[in-house]
């Protein structure tokens, strides 16, 4: 999810979950069910150079119609759960667990903070904590895994604080601004989620 280039794993669905419920967190951060208006914000967020270093290709079918289609597809997808991240009641990004396999109880997590002017305020850390706790306490998942740009220390740290540990390193994963970037692969279990979190 963080890298956006690799094809997500195939998955098998069960009952619909789609959009996550409202979860109030600390320091003004909350996870809320996405709206179509939130999805329309993704276009401007994802195409900025300020967020593109550790993100996708900065091009794509980013029309209003396509965003509406994505919104409907996400809402109907039984193998993922997605939230808008709100900070002081304003949408600032999104997060979720995708490609959930309900037999293995495993899924791939991702997070994107679109408001780069808010980087460094602990928003991602709190969003990951809320998402991860939900995975154990409400979804009864067994494991969540992810890929993060190795050089994206902020995102890595946000995930590590919620118990993610490194399970691998994919060297030269993608090319950006004249150099290769590696990807850090992490995984988390309920037993590695910190008690105090």
């Amino acid at each position, binding site marked *: 999810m963080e890298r*956006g*280039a*690799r094809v997500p794993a195939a998955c098998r669905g069960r009952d619909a979950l789609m959009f996550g419920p409202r979860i109030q967190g600390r320091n003004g951060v909350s996870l809320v069910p996405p709206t179509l208006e939130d999805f329309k914000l993704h276009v401007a967020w994802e195409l900025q150079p300020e967020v593109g270093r550790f993100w996708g290709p900065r091009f794509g079918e980013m029309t209003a119609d396509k965003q509406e289609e994505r919104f409907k597809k996400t809402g109907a997808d039984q193998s993922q759960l997605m939230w808008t991240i709100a900070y002081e009641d304003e949408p600032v990004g999104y997060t979720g667990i995708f490609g959930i396999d309900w037999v293995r109880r495993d899924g791939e997590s991702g997070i994107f903070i679109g408001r780069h002017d808010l980087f460094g305020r602990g928003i991602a850390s709190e969003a990951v904590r809320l998402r991860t706790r939900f995975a154990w306490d409400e979804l009864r998942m*067994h494991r969540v*895994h992810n890929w993060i740009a190795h050089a994206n220390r902020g995102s890595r740290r946000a995930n590590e604080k919620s118990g993610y540990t490194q399970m691998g390193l994919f060297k030269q994963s993608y090319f950006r601004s004249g150099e290769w970037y590696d990807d850090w692969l992490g995984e988390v279990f309920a037993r590695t989620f910190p008690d105090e979190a």
Partner: protein
Amino acid sequence: MALGGTVRGKKTTLRLPVEADLDAYNRWMADMRVRRAHSVWHEPAMPATWKDRFKNVAKEKQAVLWSIDADGTLAGLALGHLWTMGNGFDVSQFLIDPDRWRSGLGFDAALALHRFVFDYLDLRVATVNIRADNEAAKHIADRLGFTEFAHGHEVHYRDGAYVDELQLRMDKETWQGRWSAEREYPPLAADATR
């Protein structure tokens, strides 16, 4: 991409899949030997469902599906996905008919597949995920030149327990160093373009 064309190995041929193959696909997905060894592409289903799946994969721009023949009969399937960026290829499904395991078909077809990936598509990396206790898959991957880049714990569930997953990669340089003699076409003659 969607449906793959002919890629010849020594014992096997990767070829265009057709609807007539779907009955065997369904049978393999229902075979507990297959299900123990690796994840299934789809669950067993009615013929109409398989036809829909076949139509859908044929339309997928990033996917390539092949049927694998050996001795003139259907012996397996292979499915891969091209990365949307970065010139990579994930081998998502690679399955040989369990009644024909341990006859060298898997390695031969895998070699042909990767020759296509590196020498024809000019991709820079291939990846595959295998269950940590799948010794046959590990042997094939090791012989081809794959190396581990990640070890996922308790990823797959079967037989009442979780099993780990190994994530493997092979880079083009490894392919060229190990299999440079495995070209599909002979080198162009020096005077070929005169």
